[in-house]
């Protein structure tokens, strides 16, 4: 079965290549399609994520030999150095100087804020491969800014009901005190309380400094919840998972959270302490579909580690762009048509079926509830539940569509 699926994928790739070659004959003289990547490659906490997105997108584009509708696809990388103003300047450079057809970026929300306005005003498609601010595809939405990753709300909206349904009636919330933290906790809270759950305590430590969760975990223990629902990523996530165990809270309550808490990027540093955590996310490496299987195989062969949700988003972004370019017949001069093509395509991604919702420009995707468990002497993932076709309401976005 395994072999069969791989063969199917291979056939699909070959087919796409032939198709591409066929069209190429008619449009040989055309200049390449240029895609500008604006990501923090050299500084700050998101270097690993930036590289994972870029590498995975390359994997997706390699499948078609960097060709779409007969046009070569060229990737231009620019480094934001984790500074919003640099991100914006680099985006402008890509658009005005290098004449890219679309932008892909960034990772951090501050950089997104800086890029958003520019893309909106310059009417250049900006495809967000990882940043979850609800407003960007909600009240602030722009016809030019599309998102292939997720909105914060989208990740957690159904988790409240799920948790309440599983008997976690008293939950403590814990996230950094910033926009994403509040959006994810808020998105969880409302459906959860509507489903009969109680929030026993909410803790928001200050963002961005050496953090020891000891003080916060102490407060949470005093509140005696059934579970803690959290949002952390990167080093703080590692810290929290370890300290949760160290303080013995794992014997009294369940640790749950937006799935970045136990991302494949963090698992090596979390060790066995990461086992038994419930996560909810748009991706988990254990997703059982042929695209994901193929993606993970190729990624692991090349980079000797498990591809993360960031990589999966990068891969799917590459696929979506490729599909849209093909749909548009390789024409990129009309940016509005390009966006329309993005709206029109439907693909099977690593996360299952994907499309861009024309009403919000946010992706419509499946959301997975999973649990980490010991598999041999390593921690792995087990999918508990799959919530299909999760689509954001317009949330004040007036794109219509």
């Amino acid at each position, binding site marked *: 079965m395994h072999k069969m699926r791989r063969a199917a994928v291979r056939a699909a790739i070959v087919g796409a290549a032939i198709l591409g070659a066929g069209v190429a004959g008619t449009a040989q003289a055309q200049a390449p399609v240029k895609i500008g990547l604006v990501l923090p*490659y*050299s*500084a700050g906490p998101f*270097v690993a994520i930036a590289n994972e997105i870029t590498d995975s997108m390359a994997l997706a584009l390699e499948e078609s030999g960097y060709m779409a509708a007969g046009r070569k696809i060229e990737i231009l990388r620019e*480094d934001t*150095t*984790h*500074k*919003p*103003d640099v991100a*914006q*300047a*680099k985006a*402008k*450079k890509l658009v*005005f*100087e290098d004449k890219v057809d679309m932008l892909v970026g960034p990772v951090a*929300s*501050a950089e*997104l*804020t*800086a890029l*958003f*306005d520019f893309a909106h*005003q310059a009417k250049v498609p900006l495809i967000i491969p990882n940043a979850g*601010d609800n407003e960007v595809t909600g009240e602030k939405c722009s016809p030019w800014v599309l998102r292939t990753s997720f909105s914060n709300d989208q990740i957690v909206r159904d988790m409240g009901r799920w948790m309440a349904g599983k008997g976690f009636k008293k939950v403590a919330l814990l996230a950094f*005190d*910033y*926009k*994403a933290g*509040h959006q994810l906790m808020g998105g969880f809270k409302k459906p959860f309380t509507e489903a009969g759950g109680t929030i026993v305590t909410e803790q928001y430590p*200050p*963002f*961005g400094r050496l953090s020891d969760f000891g003080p916060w975990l102490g407060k949470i223990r005093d509140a005696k919840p059934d579970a803690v629902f959290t949002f952390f990523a990167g080093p703080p996530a590692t810290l929290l998972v370890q300290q949760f165990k160290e303080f013995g809270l794992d014997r009294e309550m369940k640790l749950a959270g937006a799935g970045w808490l136990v991302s494949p990027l963090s698992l090596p540093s979390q060790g066995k302490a990461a086992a038994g955590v419930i996560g909810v996310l748009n991706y988990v490496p254990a997703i059982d579909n042929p695209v994901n299987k193929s993606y993970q195989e190729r990624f692991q062969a090349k980079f000797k580690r498990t591809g993360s949700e960031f990589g999966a988003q990068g891969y799917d972004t590459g696929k979506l762009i490729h599909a849209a370019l093909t749909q548009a017949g390789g024409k990129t001069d009309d940016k509005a048509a390009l966006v329309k093509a993005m709206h029109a395509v439907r693909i099977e991604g690593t996360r299952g079926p994907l499309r861009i919702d024309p009403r919000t420009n946010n992706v419509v995707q499946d959301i997975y509830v999973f649990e980490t468990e010991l598999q041999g002497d390593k921690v792995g993932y087990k999918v508990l539940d799959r919530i299909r076709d999760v689509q954001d309401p317009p949330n004040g976005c007036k794109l219509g569509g």
Partner: protein
Amino acid sequence: MTPPASHSRHAVALLLAVLAVGYWLASGYYGKELVAETAITAILAMSLSLLVGQAGLVSLGHAAYFGIGAYALAGFGQKLGWPPALAMAAAVAVGALLALVVGWVAVRLAGVFFIMITLAVGEMIHAWFLKDRSFGGVGGMSGVPRLDLSGIGVDLADPAQFALFALAVALLVYLLLDRLVLSPFGQTLRAIHQNEERARALGCPVGRYKLAAFVVAGAVAALAGTLAAQRSAFVSPELMTWTLSGEILIVVIVGGSGSLLGVSAAAALWIGLRHQLSTMTDHWMLAMGVIFVVLVLVAGDGIDGALRGLWRRIAARRAARRAA
């Protein structure tokens, strides 16, 4: 340090400006962005040069005034809807006011303690904006208004035109600060720097002069901040990190702390080098760090001192040839 005769100084200023405009003409889009960034950095560095080079006050929290200028512009211009020109003036005033309050206590301290208190206050302000959600916290805030110069046919939303505008402001700041440096006030700051006890014995209320210098530096840094906010129409706490303060301090030292033109040239070198290196490698910070250390090691009196030395040597050789 005595400034060189004004005609040669202004000639160098003009040369720098011409070089900048020449680069602006020759470069593509991103080059113009670099010109704008250089101009803003130069203004910030010149303001710190007034403190470090003239008054001898080494601040490691200068980015706070830069950031406060940017945030104040965002607050007045966007949140309160004031006209951009008024908001900009008010933002500069806020920078000055903050410097007045901080300076009131800080100028009593000397040496490394002054460095530490400026760092502490800078981090405090940074922490406030990191937390406060009405300005977007870590995510920052967009939609900062730009000055409307359509009356003179300038559109600041156009990066190329904005670069020229920033350059013009930098030139203006240079002229003003140059005037200040050459005035009795500037002369007195240098006197305090060279010998505080003597200045006091001559009747100089030393604290008040230092405070005045601190306020002027804060106001000019805030002005640079308003430009930075207008350039990207965006503000975030990244504008006021202590590492930015450190970088600007290095620019000032590399330029020759007391020389407005030296530090401006160092700002250009800094931005140019960073751009060049970052296009070559993702590990450009390593190269920058090494260059940093080497420059500080060999800097002596900085670019300014090196050029003066060169000039003296040329003059000496010419004199020798004439004599021969």
